[in-house]
Each structure stands twice: as structure tokens, then as C-alpha cells.
């Protein structure tokens, strides 16, 4: 029985990483209605860029690396917008899907070229902190990741619902033409929202790197898939939904791994997704407002 609870808590804690990356995904896909397949790659790319700090200042404290990753993520977010969305007319919805796939491949290759594909050790915060209650243990660094997710959620909800940029973003997502008629500059709003989600992505990438302990190009595709699954289960556009879904998926997959083994684990995650698509297609928290 203890095994079960331990597996649940291990999984839920690791799910905090899915939650953090899921928030960005749900913003991009759900609020902006843009299919950005390069989001996780840009986040991991931001994390790698954070390592450049260590090249210049060996032994720099982790928060400096994370800040650099944060900023690099924003820059990459802007680049993805310019190369994949700015010049493509809204009437061609499939083209951005493909161009972001191209960006994902490009970012992956750049990472591989610069690091020769080798795993890079990532600085961690509290990675040896283990809270224990007898036999039962909880990872401290993942609780930090969860804390950051909650903070990010609060910050983003404030941004979306209490600022003009947030209002403009929601307007553009719902009715781009009407929004322009109201004087909202489409390009500027898009750039800013991509940069904001990119900043979050860079931070998410850095924290994922810190939790895993090493950065590798192997991380990009699984994170993309998890991000997409979490977005759907949580509800497209719902930030609290993304967090809950991330924790849920993390816990679920770990429990199934305990009982059914690692080769069948991902199959069950897919079945969970299908269950949601059939029985609750709007996700856990249907977003308020919007389409």
C-alpha cells in the first residue's frame, strides 16, 4: 500500500514538470489558438542557452543560469513567431503547423551541433533535498518546480485578465479582425504574447533540466507530446487545468508503471487521453470565455 502512495507522490511531483511546460502549451494553443509544435524545443533550447553563462562565468549560481534561460526563451519565442507565424496569412492554417515542425527540427539540430549530442550536466536547486516521513520520501526540488508553476499561473492570470496586453491577446484570439478594428495592433500583440510564453518556456526548460539533472536533445519530443496531452486533458486555454492535468498525468503514469511495467506505461497514458476525448472533450476545466 505504501508502494502505491509512494508511486503516486513520486509521479505527481514529477508531473510538476509537465504542468510547467503545459501552462505554456495551453496558452499558445488555447488562448492564442496557434499550433506551435516548436514550443518544447524552444524551451529546451532556452535551457541550453542558459548554460552559456557557465562558459563565461564558471561556477555561477543556478539562479543566474535560470535567468539566462528565461531570457533566451523569450528570444527564441520571438524568433519562432517571426519565422513561423508573422509572414503566413491566417487563411493557411496548415502552414504554421509545418513551419513550426521545421523550427523544431532546426532547433534540435542546432543543439546537437553545438554540443555534439552529448548530455550536459545542469545546475540544480535543492536537488539533494529529500523530505522524509519514515519510509515515505518527497523530492524537494520538484516541490520547488510546483511552486514555480503556481507562481507562473498567478502571474499569467494577472497578465491575461488584469492588463491591457492580456485583454488585447484574448481579443485577438477570439476575433482578429474585430480586434484590429478596435485599434489593436495585431503584429505587436502577437509578438508580445509569443515573447511572454517564450520567457515562461525558457524557465520551464531550465527547471526541467534542473529536475532531470542533465540536458539532452532526447528531451524535446517527449516533452512536446506530454505538453500536448496535458493541454487537452486540462482543457485548451485553461492554465489551472494545465497544472492539474500535469500532476494527474504524472501520477497516473507512475502508478501504471508500478503495476504494468515500463513497456506498457505510455499505452495507458494514451488510453487516458482517449478516455478524456470521448467522455470529457472540453478537458478538466473548460476555459471561461472564448470560442
Amino acid at each position, binding site marked *: 500500500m505504501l508502494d502505491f502512495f509512494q508511486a503516486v507522490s513520486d509521479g505527481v511531483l514529477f508531473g510538476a514538470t509537465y504542468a510547467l511546460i503545459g501552462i505554456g502549451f495551453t496558452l499558445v494553443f488555447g488562448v492564442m489558438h496557434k499550433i506551435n509544435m516548436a514550443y518544447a524545443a524552444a524551451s529546451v533550447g532556452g535551457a541550453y542557452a542558459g548554460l552559456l553563462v557557465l562558459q563565461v562565468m564558471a561556477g555561477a549560481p543556478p539562479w543566474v543560469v535560470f535567468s539566462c534561460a528565461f531570457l533566451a526563451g523569450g528570444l527564441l519565442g520571438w524568433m519562432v513567431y517571426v519565422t*513561423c507565424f508573422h509572414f503566413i496569412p491566417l487563411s493557411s492554417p496548415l502552414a504554421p503547423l509545418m513551419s513550426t515542425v*521545421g523550427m523544431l527540427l532546426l532547433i534540435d*539540430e542546432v543543439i546537437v551541433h553545438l554540443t555534439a549530442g552529448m548530455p550536459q550536466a545542469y545546475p540544480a536547486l535543492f536537488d539533494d533535498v529529500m523530505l522524509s516521513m519514515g519510509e515515505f520520501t518527497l523530492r524537494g526540488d520538484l516541490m520547488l518546480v510546483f511552486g514555480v508553476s503556481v507562481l507562473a499561473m498567478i502571474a499569467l492570470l494577472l497578465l491575461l485578465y488584469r492588463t491591457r496586453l492580456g485583454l488585447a491577446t484574448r481579443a485577438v484570439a477570439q476575433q482578429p479582425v474585430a480586434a484590429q478594428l478596435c485599434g489593436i495592433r495585431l503584429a505587436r500583440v502577437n509578438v508580445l504574447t509569443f515573447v511572454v510564453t517564450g520567457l515562461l518556456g525558457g524557465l520551464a526548460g531550465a527547471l526541467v533540466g534542473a529536475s532531470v539533472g542533465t540536458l539532452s536533445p532526447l528531451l524535446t519530443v517527449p516533452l512536446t507530446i506530454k505538453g*500536448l496531452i496535458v493541454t*487537452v486533458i486540462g482543457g485548451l486555454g485553461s492554465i489551472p487545468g494545465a497544472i492539474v492535468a500535469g500532476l494527474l498525468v504524472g501520477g497516473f503514469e507512475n502508478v501504471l508503471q508500478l503495476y504494468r511495467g515500463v*513497456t506498457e506505461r505510455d499505452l495507458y497514458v494514451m488510453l487516458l487521453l482517449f478516455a478524456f476525448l470521448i467522455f470529457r*472533450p472540453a478537458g478538466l476545466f473548460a476555459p471561461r470565455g472564448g470560442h
Partner: protein
Amino acid sequence: MDFYFGLAQLIGVHTLLGLSAYIVLLTGQVSLAQAGFFAVGAYVAGMLTVLAGWHIVPALGVSAMSGAAVACAVGFPALRVKGLMLVIATLAFGEGVRLFFFNFDYQIAKGEIQVGPLGGEGFRQIRFFPENGWETWEVMYFIWAIVIAAMALLWWFDRSRYGTVLRAVGEDELAAQSVGINLTAVKVSAMTVGGAIAGVGGGLYAHYTTHIEHLSFNILLATFAIAYPIVGGLRSVFGTLLAVIFVQGFLVEGLRFLGDWRNLLFGALIVLAMNLRPEGILGGRRRA
């Protein structure tokens, strides 16, 4: 010369993969499940020729039917999800198929060795072509005969009422429904045809690589499947063919002389292509 025959084989099989996504894309469904149907076709054809000793032609027939059957089964639930959700659902299905084969063992003894798929180890020694003395150019002709048949079928669909109906559904479901088009029949039938084509493509893939494993049918392959019709444009089947030649012929093999830059240019040129021609190389809408 052998190299060009081999490249032509590869382009042929990838064209089949692209065509299977093309017909589904016409109805407005972005399906990342084609690699899953491809995988089903590959394992079925491989098992029939290796374990049951069948000839390749009936084996491919059965793999087409199994691809179609699985696709039909997917087509119905797919009706309930739209847009991004469908993309994710089909991606999850494709991964599910891959994970199924990751866990699938079916071996029989042939002589002193065990043959057949063995889970994570894969399915090795699918050697129908070399064992029966097929030369590279003969395999190429065989593959292209099938590709041309598939292209002809889809070309004929495009010029017939069925094609117009498909595109009508793709353009505006509500309008299509309001003129009496049965959405279910159209979308599921397109998915089924796509599944059949992918099944044959998969069967051919298994035989010309001689060894398949679950990792061969990953998300990257699923993405390539829809990349071909999107980059090529939905105006006609030739768009898909051109896109396959562009990606596999030019980007992969043609740019080899650039050495390391080739890999970097791969993603960059796809981004560029989508910016320059967002409707695809041959363009999107058919005018009349």
C-alpha cells in the same frame, strides 16, 4: 545506378505514406495516425511472407485490408474531435500502435532459428526480395506500379464527384452538411482509403528495409506523412509527389555535398518553404 533505383524505391514508399495523409487532409482532418496504419501494414506483410511463406502480392493485399480496417475503426471516433484535438488524438493513436508492437512477440521456429517479431528487438530478416532474386530495379518497378495505381485512384477521385464532396467537407463542414452530404460517410471513407494506402506502403517498407522495429514508426514518420501533402499543396496528388522528391531527393540526398550543413538546412528550408508557399508547392484550392 543501384543507388538511384534504391532512392526511387524510397521516394515511392514515402509517396504512398504522403498520399494516405493527402486524402484524409482533403476532408479537413489533420491525421498523425498514418504512421500507425503504415506500421500495421508493415508487420502484417512481414509476418505473411516470413512466417507463412506467402508471395509478396497477396501479402500486400492483406496489409492494405488490415490498414483499411484499423483506419475505419479510427475514423468513427475521430468524427467526435476536431482541429487540434484530432491532431493530438491521432498522434496518441499512432504512438499507441507503436507501443503495441513494442510489446508484441510472435515467433515460430524455422529450421534452427526463431523468426518473427520480438517486441523491442524488432522483426528481422524480412528477405523476400533478395531471397527470390529480385534486382533493385525490379523492386523499384514493382513499388512504382503500386504508387502509380494509388495516384491514379486518387486522381480519379479528385476528378469525380467523390473528390468534390471530399473537398467540400474539408472546406466547410456546416455548408456541406446543409446540402445533404453525409459527413460520417465521407470522413470515414477517406480515412479508410488512406489506411489502405498506408498499409500497402508499410508492407513495402518492411520488405525493402528487411528489418523493422517499433522505433521505425515513431512520431517523426507520422509528421513526415502529413508534411508531404502540406508542403506539396492540396491541389493535386502531384503536389505530394513533388514534396517527397523535394524532401527525400533534394533535402536528404541532394544536399549531401554540404556535409554538416545539410542537417541544419533541413529544418530551415522547410520553414522557408512554408513561408514562401504557405499553400504548398502546387497550391491549395482547386478552381473548378
